[in-house]
């Protein structure tokens, strides 16, 4: 279990419901208020569970991605009523620019939520959730969620070995580019071989032959029920808001007004608190820890 993250101590079922709700709501809306809440909640949680270096590395990754996505939309989408200027006789419109920013925020939020999901749900939780119903799916899920950090680590290993061999020494840009390409090709070769080896090893140990029982240390306690109830209540309120069209938002051809009637505000409040839940747990635990230490 991941000791650094308080939120990871909940029961897999409650956690899965929470992340499923967040992902579905974030992916199926264009409403900038909801996307902003989702983005803020996910980035606060990510910041609260990372070291300072990781936070800087994340900013270096997510900000360029955000900018590239938001610039791509106005180049290819020329709909919208307010042209800013014309590029090769095609209008670049205000609506397309804002829609691009909205899409970029949505994609970053979804990526951050997925990142939080893989941080919180380790393979044993996934196996506990789906191990009986879909053994193959749960192995594939837990293995593929592990791939990116695994490849990152292996990339660094190969690079270190090549540095020891004397590559990357000249500090020249083109040569370091070539050396990185060589490291990458070695990584791909290793990844393919590793995949085949893992598959052999799994079947050699008799996974999915039947009659195999698994043991999981997860008990559904009171606080898991509380998290589950909060998630269910808040996401039902959000769902009702979605079904009533309170989350509707259109960019083309004119940007619609953001709904501000009572029902929409309830929807925003419900979704806002839903997206802040993990961050609140982290802060609460950190404060509690500080308080206990101050008494020593």
């Amino acid at each position: 279990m991941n000791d650094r993250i308080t939120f990871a101590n909940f029961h897999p079922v409650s956690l899965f419901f929470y992340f499923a709700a967040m992902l579905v709501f974030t992916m199926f809306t264009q409403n900038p208020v909801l996307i902003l809440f989702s983005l803020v909640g996910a980035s606060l949680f990510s910041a609260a569970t990372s070291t300072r270096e990781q936070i800087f590395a994340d900013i270096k990754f997510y900000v360029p991605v955000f900018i590239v996505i938001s610039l791509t939309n106005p180049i290819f989408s020329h709909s919208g009523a307010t042209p800013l200027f014309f590029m090769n006789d095609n209008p670049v419109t205000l609506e397309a620019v804002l829609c691009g920013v909205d899409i970029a925020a949505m994609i970053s939020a979804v990526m951050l939520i997925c990142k939080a999901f893989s941080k919180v749900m380790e393979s044993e939780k996934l196996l506990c959730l789906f191990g009986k119903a879909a053994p193959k799916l749960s192995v594939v899920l837990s293995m593929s969620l592990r791939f990116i950090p695994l490849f990152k680590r292996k990339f660094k290993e190969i690079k270190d070995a090549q540095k020891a061999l004397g590559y990357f020494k000249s500090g020249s840009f083109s040569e370091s580019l070539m050396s990185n390409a060589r490291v990458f090709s070695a990584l791909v070769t290793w990844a393919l071989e590793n995949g085949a080896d893992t598959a052999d090893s799994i079947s050699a140990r008799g996974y999915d032959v039947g009659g195999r029982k698994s043991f999981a240390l997860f008990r559904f306690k009171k606080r898991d029920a509380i998290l589950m109830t909060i998630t269910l209540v808040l996401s039902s309120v959000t769902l009702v808001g979605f079904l009533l069209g309170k989350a509707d938002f259109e960019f083309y051809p004119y940007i619609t007004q953001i709904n501000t009637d009572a029902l929409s505000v309830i929807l925003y409040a419900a979704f806002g608190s839903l997206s802040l839940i993990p961050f609140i747990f982290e802060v609460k635990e950190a404060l509690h820890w500080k308080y206990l230490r101050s008494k020593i």
Partner: protein
Amino acid sequence: MFKKRKDIIIILAFVMIAAIFILNTDFKSVDEYYLEHAQDVENADATVFISIKCETILENIEDLDRNLILLVPKDGIILPQTEYALRDGDSVFDILVRTAKTHKIQMEYSGGASSSAYIEGIAHFYEFSCGELSGWTYLVNGEHPSVSSASYELSDGDVIEWVYTCEVSRDILQGGAANE
């Protein structure tokens, strides 16, 4: 970081590619764009007539995207029949582009003027805006040509109608089909 001659060559190559892209892109302000062809309209020997209509949307208004409802003209006519100067080799597409510029009608196309222009949307009504079978098509002198509007060359006195269809041209051809 950049220590060798190879580095400088690579950087220069990147800069060149970026420069080629930017130099080949033509940037115009909104005013420049709309004023471009305004003076071409007058004094010509040959003329054609063009109109832009979306009456079919009025009949299928329940299929229309909700945020477009306020934009539908009450009589379904976006541009009433208007006379335009015809230059040598002008296609239906060229005339539409000029008309849209002069009247500041929003328009988007893909494919370009060379041969295979496809009109994606006029006046914010796009393909699929009013049901799955909807889009823009055109008639010349009441007939429905089977070539792209950029390949149809016009002659003096032709009457162009740009019409929005909600049923892949079936709904607009009923009148025309009776003549055949």
